């Protein structure tokens, strides 16, 4: 296990810039890795049968980045073959089809990365101080799975 420190590539980030799965996976680059997986959360165009115009994401950035890092630590403690993790979440106004989050996990071999990335998505949705406001044609609402 290795988790990069703050002065190396930023692995746990809240950003307002558009996301690229390739770019986030690229942050894990390491000759030791033989497998990497990227989960991409995408803005869906419809919820409860209602067309969505856009989503607006808001974060408590300092706490959110710490929480994302904490999720990385939990993963490395549980899945020992995982080499590196990156979690990058976007905030601001996102249109349908845009990526809201990219979670990348790498390892020498693939066996544990699928479970690890699933855990990361579930855990982010549970504890990260990030909020989503859904906007449709005749209103808007803050949505949570909690």
């Amino acid at each position, binding site marked *: 296990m290795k988790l990069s420190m703050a002065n190396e590539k930023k692995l746990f980030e809240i950003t307002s810039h558009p996301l690229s799965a390739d770019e986030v996976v690229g942050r894990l680059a390491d000759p030791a890795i033989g497998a990497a997986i990227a989960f991409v*959360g995408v803005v869906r165009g419809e919820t409860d049968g209602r067309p969505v115009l856009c989503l607006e*994401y*808001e*974060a*408590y950035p*300092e*706490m*959110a980045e*710490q929480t994302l890092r904490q999720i990385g630590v939990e993963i490395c403690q549980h899945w020992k073959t995982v080499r590196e993790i990156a979690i990058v*979440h976007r905030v601001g106004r996102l249109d349908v089809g845009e990526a*809201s*989050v990219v979670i990348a996990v790498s390892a020498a071999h693939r066996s544990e990365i699928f479970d690890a990335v699933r855990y990361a*998505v579930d855990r*982010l*949705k*549970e*504890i*990260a*101080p*990030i*909020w*989503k*406001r859904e906007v449709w044609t005749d209103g808007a609402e*803050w*949505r*949570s*799975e*909690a």
Partner: protein
Amino acid sequence: MKINVKLFAALREELDKREFVQELPQGATLGSLVERVGSKYPVVRAHLSSLHFAVNHKYTTLEAVLQEGDEVAFLPPVGGG
């Protein structure tokens, strides 16, 4: 002592403010801060059962004792991902 309160999402919208400073007696708990803010802003009181709280970026329970300059965030139900 002065506590920096930060608001997010629905609370931030409904109170139309991102943050404010709350005066509290020395040794006050997070619970007493929540009580005081709830009585000042009925909309906070209305949301109380669904809120979580963080002190200096860490989830914290109501028994915690606050210090001068602490940053306390009132966190509505999260929706990241």
